[in-house]
């Protein structure tokens, strides 16, 4: 089972929820935690893993052989990302714009372009207690995070439970984190910001065909805007975490909810069982259709 934790809005508590669920479930099954927020990974702060291996992730950018290049301009013409430019007597490349599609090299009529690896980040693997822990870290200054997210996603354990901590937002890096997961837990807060971004996230998750449920963080009596939205949309509110100074303070020190309070540990196990139920339900519906 692969569960992604996403949110739309940043800072709603994705990492708190993802790490708490991982900690709670490690007693029952083999759990792999994938930190796919490669721009700003934070899972390690709460799980304190020991890293045992590091893999550098590269994309292939063009390298021009000036001896062979006849300045025909075909490479610049086919590049959809404006990563090559014929300027006077040379072809200039902009590796930070390159998506690594290999088009320039394939179409170069004189074979003047060879692939040159450009590091976009690292994937680090390790263990945190009984958890397998994997995170991606984007190089500062690299723009392109989706290939790195994909590289992290490849690290799902054999069987067991995989928990994917997604980045905020609703665009490419989030899509690469959420697609192909069995369930997406959307973490939000009962503010107009939280609601607005939850709606965007729900549309995104639905377009990917991934079943979802909502977790309301910093919930307060009488602030029912998220529940109302979920009723209208037919989405299950799976859990609420109350607005609490103590929880916020524990978070600021890097203490996860499941470690902070034993009761939460059980609540996250229960949450996992309910997710399992929803996923099984969804599958039987699909089979009937």
């Amino acid at each position, binding site marked *: 089972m692969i569960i992604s934790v996403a949110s739309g809005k*940043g800072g709603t508590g994705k990492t708190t929820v993802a790490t708490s669920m991982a900690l709670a479930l490690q007693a029952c099954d083999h759990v792999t935690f994938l930190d796919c927020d490669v*721009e*700003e990974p934070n899972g390690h702060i709460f799980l304190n893993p020991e890293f045992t291996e590091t893999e550098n992730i590269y994309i292939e950018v063009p390298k021009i052989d000036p001896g062979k290049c006849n300045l025909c301009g075909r490479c610049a013409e086919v590049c959809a990302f404006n990563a090559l430019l014929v300027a006077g007597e040379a072809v200039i490349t902009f590796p930070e714009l390159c998506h690594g*599609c290999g088009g320039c090299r*394939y179409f170069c009529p004189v074979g003047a372009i060879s692939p040159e690896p450009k590091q976009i980040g690292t994937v680090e693997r390790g263990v945190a207690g009984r958890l397998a822990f994997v995170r991606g870290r984007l190089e500062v200054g690299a723009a392109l*995070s989706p290939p790195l997210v994909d590289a992290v996603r490849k690290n799902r354990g054999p069987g067991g439970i995989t928990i994917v901590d997604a980045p905020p937002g*609703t665009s490419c890096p989030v899509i690469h984190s959420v697609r192909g997961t069995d369930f997406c837990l959307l973490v939000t807060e009962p503010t107009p910001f939280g609601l607005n*971004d939850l709606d965007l996230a729900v549309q995104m998750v639905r377009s990917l065909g991934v079943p979802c449920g909502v977790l309301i963080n910093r919930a307060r009596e009488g*602030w029912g805007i998220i529940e109302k939205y979920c009723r209208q949309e037919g989405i299950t509110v799976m859990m609420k975490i109350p607005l609490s100074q103590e929880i916020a303070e524990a978070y*600021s020190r890097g203490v996860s909810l499941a470690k902070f309070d034993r009761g939460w540990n059980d609540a996250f196990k229960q949450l996992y069982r309910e997710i399992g139920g929803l996923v099984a339900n969804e599958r039987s519906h699909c089979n009937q259709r």
Partner: protein
Amino acid sequence: MKEVTVISGKGGTGKTSITGSFAVLAQNHVLVDCDVDAANLHLLLDPEIQVRKNFWGMPKVEIDPQKCTGCGLCEELCRFGAVKQGRVDQMSCEGCRVCYHACPEGAVRLVENLAGEWFISRTRYGPFVHARLGVAQDNSGKLVAEVRRQARSLAEREGRELIITDGPPGIGCPVISALGGTDLALVVVEPTLSSIHDLVRVIRLAEHFGVKTAVCINKWDINPRNSRTVEIMCRDMDIPLIGRVGYDPAVIAAAMERKPVVQVMSAVVDDIVSLWHCVERQLGI
């Protein structure tokens, strides 16, 4: 013309609440929301949309089954695994067009890609340029660039001297697009280990692109010890720490009423006003 861009690395540290208050405090400015895939500033500014334009992203590709001979060249060349058995998976397609250029039968065609919308609005705090990226779309960096271009030309047309930009979280493509050529990146950090970790990365990013940076600590009193750490870090990195905003539940209450914080009674109003004066000094206005 000057531009200040509010960023954070980690999301949810208070970028939009602070930008919304700057909107009230500044004068003769244009407001911009560059967090195009989860925009929120409009929720505080109550905009009245005056101009609404389509944003065309990179074209997607489609394979014409009538022309396709099934040679498999497109599938072989696609680095993104987006072509399978003569069909294009739009979610995986990167828009590189290698298949389009390579197909010997001309069976791959380009399809226009409506990737979102951008808007110019009036608000009681001044003109506002914002956008909405389509569901599950890429191209966020391009849309950020478009929104900023529109804001600049609007500022020039109306003789406005200042652009206030709400930036996206993270350090990737939309942030890089939001930072290029700005006069000041104001990083909003909160005193949590996560936010502090992300602060370092976002400061290095701004440095990488040669953007002047200043830091402010939001909700500093939630963990004064961590706030002290931020102060020391800023001093060591030689980055000016230009403000400390306290924690007050009134900030959330203001957001619930869709109002910028400085328009409600709160202990943090003074903090934000003095932060704004420091931003003005940093910008030299």
